[in-house]
């Protein structure tokens, strides 16, 4: 087999990330690579779809198939690709503005469908690429370029929305907790159904509030609480809203229900992309006869 051995090195692309030194997104990129290696997924079977924003540049930095799509549209593009070829491992990535602002509608509906895809949000609580405006997850009171008197809107609670919308794998990571993040990412990719990881991925240039130390002071790992049962939706709900002095990270919730792909009759015959095209005369005549 001519394929090179699958290593972190072999997953490097020609393009060096253009993120600021210290950007949380480096950790997310590394965790995706580590998860692919750990799961032994051939990189040509991976399609990473992003939106627009600093974090959405990620597909260019890893040697896998990618679509760097439009602002807010990573999930529908990923959905179309996943339905067209469910043999692919489709991973959607992007930032909090991309996913919870301009793309919020798609976020909710993708989870309702329980498509077999993974969505990793690099959540830095700010619009970074546009140099520092308030985002949907910006902390109340935070003064940004667009909120000079402090943000008056309540931040979106993506994990609570995910639980309410039917996502079957809901986790929160922190890019400074590399080991945990890789584990969460590998489990998310392996999960059958819609998996969401909301990753605290600090912006070292435009967010001077939600910094690495700010998160480090607050986060605690759910897996260290032996009593926490991630299959219990009613236990997960309060955890999903816990965001203040203490913030849980780790796997909040996991369940099993049929994926969209499982329930779509047309996909019983294998990936759409492999199915035959067109109609024969008898089939066409039968369809026309319905109108006669």
């Amino acid at each position, binding site marked *: 087999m001519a394929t090179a051995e699958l290593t972190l090195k072999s997953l490097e692309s020609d393009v060096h990330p253009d993120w600021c030194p210290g950007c949380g997104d480096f950790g997310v990129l590394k965790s995706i690579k580590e998860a692919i290696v750990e799961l032994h997924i051939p990189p040509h079977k991976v399609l990473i779809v992003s939106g627009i924003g600093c974090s959405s540049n990620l597909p260019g930095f890893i040697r896998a198939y990618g679509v*760097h*799509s*439009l602002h807010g549209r990573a999930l529908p593009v990923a959905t179309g690709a996943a*339905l067209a070829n469910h043999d692919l491992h489709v991973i959607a990535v992007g930032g909090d503005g991309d996913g919870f602002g301009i793309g919020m509608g798609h976020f909710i*509906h993708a989870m309702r469908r329980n498509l077999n895809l993974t969505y990793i949000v690099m959540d830095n609580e700010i619009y970074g690429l546009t140099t520092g405006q308030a985002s949907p997850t910006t902390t109340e009171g935070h003064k940004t370029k667009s909120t000079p008197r402090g943000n008056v809107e309540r931040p979106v609670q993506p994990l609570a929305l995910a639980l309410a919308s039917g996502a079957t794998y809901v986790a929160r990571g922190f890019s400074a907790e590399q080991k945990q993040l890789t584990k969460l990412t590998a489990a998310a990719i392996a999960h059958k159904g819609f998996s969401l990881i909301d990753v605290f991925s600090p912006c070292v240039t435009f967010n001077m509030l939600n910094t690495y130390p700010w998160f480090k002071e607050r986060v605690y790992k759910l897996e260290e609480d032996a009593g926490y049962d991630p299959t219990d939706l009613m236990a997960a709900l309060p955890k999903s809203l816990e965001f203040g002095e203490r913030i849980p990270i780790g796997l909040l919730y996991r369940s099993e229900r049929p994926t969209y792909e499982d329930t779509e009759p047309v996909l019983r015959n294998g990936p759409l992309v492999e199915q035959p095209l*067109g109609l024969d005369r008898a089939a066409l005549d039968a369809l026309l006869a319905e*109108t006669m």
Partner: protein
Amino acid sequence: MATEITIGIAGAAGDGLDRTGDTLARTAARLGLHLFTYNSYQSLIRGGHTWLRLRLSEEKVDNHGDHLNVLVALNQDGIERHAREVEPGGAIVFNGARFNCDPSLVREGVTLVPLPVPELTAPLGKLLPVMQNTAALGALLHLIGFEVAGAAEILFETFRKKGQEVIDQNGGVLRAGYDYAARKVPALGYRWSFSRKRRPVVTGNLMTALGAVAAGCKFYSAYPMSPASSILHWLAAHSETCGVLVKQAEDELAVVNLAIGAGHAGVRAMCATSGGGFALMSEAIGMAGMIETPVVIVNVQRGGPSTGLPTKSEQGDLNQAIGASQGDFPRVIIAPRDAADCFHTSVEAFNLAETFQLPVIVLSDLLLGEHRSTVDPEAIPSDVPIERGQWVDALRPEDRDNGGYKRYALTPSGISPRARPGREGMIHVSGTDDHDEKGILISDEHTNPAIRRKMHEKRMRKMEGVRARLRPPALEGPAEAQVTLIGWGSTWSVIHEAAARLTEEGVKTNQLHFKYLHPFHGAEARAILERCRRTIVVESNFTGQFARHLRAESGFSVDHVLTRYDGEPFEPAYITRRVRAFLEGRPVDLEVEEHEAREMAYHYIRIHMQDKTRPGRLRKVAAAEYGEPVWEVELVGRAAGTPEGLLVIGRETGSTYGSHSLVSNER
């Protein structure tokens, strides 16, 4: 001369008009007749006024024409609105036990056929009120010279699942209506020669969907929007049979991005919407152009702007289609001309989309999409060409990945062979930022004007390849003509008929019709038009969008633009009348016409008088107090036609100046 007839069925939504029309249409089609139906419906589930016209002919017809020979009125309102339109030699059929027809509404030589429905149906037991339709249909069959058996057969098939009792009742009522009419009135004297060749009765939307399936479409996404929804409904119902994954999404943003995602993954993907949804899709259409992903987007146009006229037709989205999304990128815009052409347009759209890796926009419209006509089954082939374009399936090991594959290779044709995600060795990223041959971004801090220029030129070069493949426009009709009528899309048939009529009447007229709107055959169009004497663009929008496009692309300015933008489709006479006015040098007359004043009165009566009166006689009055000449519309009692008031409508502005009661003002 081919025998033909136009039948109008009037009623309220919910009166069962569609079923009656369907039975009649299929009966005619099984006899070997051609037909076109136009349903002037409203966006209401029940109530309102619905007006279905069926034009049946021994020859192919693709518009509803100008005539009304028989009116089947399913309610009182239908009689009042349409009785005066029935031409001499025609008839009006209605349930005489529930409705009456004021003789003053009826032209001389029109036969009234009031059916005593309760008497006719009494022997069949207690029946639903909609069974009056079946009795009327029976009477109609006698009048127009059809045998009763054909319709009975269709009713049998329709009600087969509902049991013998329902079948017997329907068949019985049909025959009772037929026999009663046959006893009471002579048939109208139509002499048909029935070929009995069975033809499908289809809509443009059905043909668009079927063409897509035949062309190998595997993925269809949509958000409900009139008048595109019937594509969604048909494909959803036939999804498994046809092997098409159908996905309703949360909005049109998702719809088009789903289709592009599927197209990128390697399947033929299509979506459809109308103008508002298309506006939401704009940004992604540019993405398809930039990342060179094939996708077919159907815009079944309706009246705009904004929510506009959800149930009326217009060709108002040409500017939008040409201008959708930021920047320049290759795109194709095709406008099919009739139902059969919708089938072939879908096939062609996929082949162009995949060969040239770009978005293809199909501009259909409500008239084409929703109205039914017969097609010849031979015109609908199953073995359509499926051209999937250039692909790279494998590379030599040493050329793999970052070595050899260039997704956006700079080529003379502008076409760069695609690779399917999932195939080993051709890993790449497709980005909406501008990029180099391998897809690596050249935006932001790495902006590279030289690469940008060559990549932009490569993409745009594909337009030349598309143009070379498309059939240029050609004149139809007499070569040396006094008038050339120019149109695009769904108006082909009505313009064709208008041109033939003008020629017959001594104004030699030919036709130049455009199916391919972008890229455009500018030079070819100019060469043809420069030799024409009087050029008139006919299109249904306000500003003459195509005339402007033609001027932009060919440098040719036409003499006149003949527009219609009231939501109703062109009729041949509408065109011929205005062409004559142009020839006589008369300016376009925008005064409120009599039938329009009547429509305005109906609106006033519905909103302010709870439908208690109807418009009677109309009179033109030069009334100084309104600052413009006005229509005085007599408001009369629904049944007896006794005068009850006057409504004043400005002839220039169309403003309603209120009503004056003639009797004591009690409501």
